[in-house]
């Protein structure tokens, strides 16, 4: 990364620094506010939030029903909300249906439950290919689906952001919510993987 070398910051880094320093001088932003936002997204927001939502849905049928009916509200029950989390829709994987999420236009993603999207989610290759040939993309990412399984691709947008409710793995009947949450990965909630087995 060129930015690690303080003697020769990259062109993009200079442009970003120029913009921030000008806005600061104009009194439009404060560095402390920017610092706090970055810290929040790097440390407090992430897929561990979504994992708690999924674990609760597995453990509590009433919560699962509320989550499928109005995900934004059900997610708020656990204290998660904020930018990019206003209109979340949860789609449920079953033995016969596998859901996978993409944003074909940019990178729409439910921040409060998944944090910021990984690089591959924003990559043009994933965004265009998963719509055309989802099975091939999923197989390439390590998820081979059986032939009889229907694959549904959901295009997140400004209006709706999708979150996948993965299938609860077998042999997890005795686990508590915290142990269940540890099985739920970001990739499982985008739909490019299944939940881990205990």
């Amino acid at each position: 990364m060129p930015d690690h070398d303080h003697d020769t910051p990259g062109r993009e880094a200079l442009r970003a620094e120029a913009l921030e320093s000008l806005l600061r001088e104009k009194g439009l932003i404060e560095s402390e506010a920017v610092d706090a936002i970055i810290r929040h997204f790097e440390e407090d927001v992430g897929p561990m939030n979504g994992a708690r939502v999924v674990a609760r849905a597995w453990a509590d049928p009433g919560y699962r029903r509320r989550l499928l009916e109005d995900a934004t509200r059900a997610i708020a029950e656990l204290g998660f909300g904020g930018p990019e989390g206003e209109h979340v829709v949860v789609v449920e994987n079953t033995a016969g249906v596998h859901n996978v999420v993409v944003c074909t236009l940019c990178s729409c993603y439910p921040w409060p439950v998944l944090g910021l999207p990984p690089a591959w989610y924003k990559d043009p290759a994933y965004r265009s290919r998963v719509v055309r040939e989802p099975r091939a993309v999923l197989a390439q990412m390590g998820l081979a689906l059986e032939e009889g399984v229907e694959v549904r691709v959901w295009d997140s947008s400004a209006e709706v952001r999708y979150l996948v409710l993965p299938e609860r793995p077998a042999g997890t009947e005795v686990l508590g919510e915290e142990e269940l949450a540890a099985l739920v990965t970001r990739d499982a909630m985008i739909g490019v993987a299944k939940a881990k087995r205990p």
Partner: protein
Amino acid sequence: MSARAIEHLDATGPAAPPRRNGELVFAAPWESRIFGVTLALHDAGLLQWEEFRARLIAEIAEWERDVRDDEWSYYLCWLAALENLLVAKGLCGRPELDARGRALAARPPGHDH
């Protein structure tokens, strides 16, 4: 899928640098700064999320249409979208942005951030 995209897939694998929330969120410090600046402007009511998103979509679409030989950088599209929006809204002038960039580039080696 291009070799570049495969690299991106691997960048989020087990070898990715650890973060407290389990994610590699930003690949370089400037990416996190520009992200934070955008949200701070939004929180201050200086930009609407939808108008920013529209600019971001346009930048990404332009990259995909015209400049495929350039290296893909999501946050470069983000940076361009933010610059264009702020110039369009009159919050920043293009000449002063360029001048500030040149001034920062001319700093002596080993300057203090």
